[in-house]
């Protein structure tokens, strides 16, 4: 089967769906169009349609970007036990983690592009054609590792699907090294993203060596939280067999990650509040507000409370095995990390700014629409890839192919 025939087969599979499937796709496309409309305004007028200004020069877009890098990195949580330890229950769902990683990286790259003042000059980043400031610029590193990670996951997913479509089992000597490489690559993307922030001495809120470890811990909470919910949806809407054991194991791993995440946050809070230097002001803005500037305070306490509750729900075996408390825990973790690694990471660093001015930022409708559009693109990528992957995983595809063409379907 050539690549064109493979693409055609896969496309045909993605386009065959129930009314509910098409309603979902249509809904996502509408949101994408809503976002594109807002982006056209931004492209015409400039980033002035956002509420970012010189005092707060990164905000909603970069916050979402950071959160999603974590989601993408968290694919390894599923990959490590599945492939390294040959642990059966997770193996069948590891590919879904990789599909999630691909979708998340696509969203990351889109959030970076919409944040650029001159997206028409993106090619200045390409070594050879442009001029990449490598290895000095951490952002150059970030662009590099994110793209490598995207290509890596795409190659793994495509190869596994290609084998699945052909009905033969994959070649372990190709897949295993690639997957082994994706583990440090996943740690790499989140570490490098943390270094973009941590390497800035003028922003004490970020300029902490604890930042990269905190990034990894929160990623190992948020990524799996999304996965667990998606697994349960797939359990109910498709024939894919995801064992409860796999879900519980992931939930247990998340409990450890959440503990570390809260512990590191506590360590940072102790250091800042007890030493009480001028750097404390950013944490004060986040948790208590400065004078009447209190926009982030409710969100800050929401992320702490959600984080603690989720940790308790996932720590206790009975509640992580109960379908209701498990899902509540997932939502709490998602909310907690989305606030913490999104606006909670970006806004306090700029408030007050380096010269002490307080500009209180809230996103505009344009930013919200563009963000919603990008999330919809991510969901779209995930849905389409799953639409193809799930029947291949369940063997449905091979069976249909065997009955349809009479060809022998192995694997």
């Amino acid at each position, binding site marked *: 089967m050539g690549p064109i025939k493979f693409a055609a087969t896969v496309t045909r599979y993605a386009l065959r769906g129930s009314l509910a499937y098409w309603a979902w796709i249509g809904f996502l496309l509408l949101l994408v169009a809503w976002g594109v409309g807002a982006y056209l305004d931004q492209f015409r007028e400039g980033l002035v349609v956002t509420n*970012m200004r010189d005092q707060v020069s990164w905000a909603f877009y970069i916050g979402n970007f950071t959160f999603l890098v974590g989601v993408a990195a968290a694919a390894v949580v599923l990959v490590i036990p599945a492939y390294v330890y040959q642990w059966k229950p997770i193996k069948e769902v590891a590919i879904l983690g990789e599909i999630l990683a691909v979708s998340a990286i696509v969203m990351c790259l889109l959030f970076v592009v919409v944040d650029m003042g001159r997206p028409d000059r993106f090619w200045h980043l390409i070594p050879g054609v442009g001029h990449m400031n490598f290895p000095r610029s951490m952002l150059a590193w970030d662009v590099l590792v994110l793209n490598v990670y995207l290509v890596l996951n795409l190659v793994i997913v495509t190869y596994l699907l290609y084998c699945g479509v052909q009905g033969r089992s994959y070649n372990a000597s190709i897949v295993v090294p690639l997957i082994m490489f994706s583990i440090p690559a996943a740690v790499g993307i989140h570490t490098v993203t943390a270094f973009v922030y941590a390497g800035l001495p003028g922003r004490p809120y970020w300029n902490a060596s604890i930042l990269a470890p905190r990034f990894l811990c929160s990623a190992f909470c948020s990524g799996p939280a999304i996965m667990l919910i998606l697994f349960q949806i797939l359990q109910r809407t498709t024939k894919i067999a995801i064992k409860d054991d796999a879900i519980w194991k992931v939930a247990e791993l998340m409990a450890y990650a959440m503990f570390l995440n809260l512990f590191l946050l506590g360590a940072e809070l102790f250091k800042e509040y007890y030493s009480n230097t001028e750097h404390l002001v950013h944490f004060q803005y986040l948790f208590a507000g400065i004078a009447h500037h209190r926009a982030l305070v409710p969100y800050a306490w929401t992320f702490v409370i959600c984080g603690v509750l989720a940790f308790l729900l996932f720590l206790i075996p009975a509640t992580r095995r109960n379908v209701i408390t498990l899902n509540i825990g997932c939502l709490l973790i998602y909310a907690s990390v989305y606030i913490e690694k999104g606006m909670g990471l970006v806004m306090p660093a700029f408030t007050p700014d380096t*010269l002490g001015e307080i500009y209180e930022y809230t996103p505009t409708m344009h930013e919200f629409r563009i963000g919603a559009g990008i999330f919809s693109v991510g969901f779209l990528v995930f849905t389409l890839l799953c639409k193809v992957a799930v029947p291949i995983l369940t063997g449905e595809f091979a069976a249909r192919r065997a009955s349809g063409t009479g060809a022998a379907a192995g694997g």
Partner: protein
Amino acid sequence: MPVDDSSRDAGRDETGSDPVGLSRRQFLTAVGVAAAGVLAGCSPETREAFLQKYFRELSPEELELRAARLRTAVHARFGKDVQMSTLAAQPGVSFAYALDLSRCIGCRRCVYACVKENNQSRHPQIQWIRVLEMAKSKGIDFKDANPYYDPEKVPDPHHFYLPVACQHCRTPPCTKVCPVGATWTDPDGIVVIDYDWCIGCRCCMSACPYGARHFNWTTPHLDGAELNPDMHVLGNRPRPRGVVEKCTFCVHRARKGRYPACVEICPVGARKFGNLIDPEGELSIILREKRVFVLKAELNTEPRFYYFYGI
């Protein structure tokens, strides 16, 4: 031209192609041809502006071509003939700046002179110098500084004034982080930006500890009548939308041996500028005779911008 060859090739390939679809090579060729076609349809200026070379790799002839193109572009936008200097850093020059805090009265004349001299956007307003009002009882304390002070008259007896602009650090955190190398330190110590290379990621703004970098959130607007025609490619030429800008020590003046506009306008003589390598230069004398300090010395940025108390 290789572009023309590939376009003929693509034409042949397409007619003889398999009805199932384009191969990857054909597809890539078609994309390349389409891109080349779009560029071929543009004016030579647009093409040169889009497919430009990295500034620091331009030959002297290419640099002159660049300046000519920029001059034409300014003329098209403002209807005014301007000079577009390409003057590089002069040998034996290392610029530095000193500001006498005991003299500054917070009148902000430097702010407005800078805006006029450097063709900053009037709408929305962009100002490269920010004057902070600080309580005498607190000393230099950014947390309680007020950039929006508006008393009946300055100076207010309970406050002093601290003007801040680009500190032209010797180890600038901003140039290091730029992913495309669009900002760098020239040999005379001036930190410059190529507005045509900047991708607008604003990493440098996050990196700058002095709030010196400003972004063109929308198309900068100023009238042709207000335009200062004495320009430099890396200095005060009008900026496009979506790029970062900042103080250049008035590179178009400084490299010709003139004072920056803020030094000239200061009514109390608080601002000093000179060449550190000249032992009898103003800055050498100040560094010898006065006790100076720099802002946020703990960050090890080693600014070329010094502050001192002259009286």
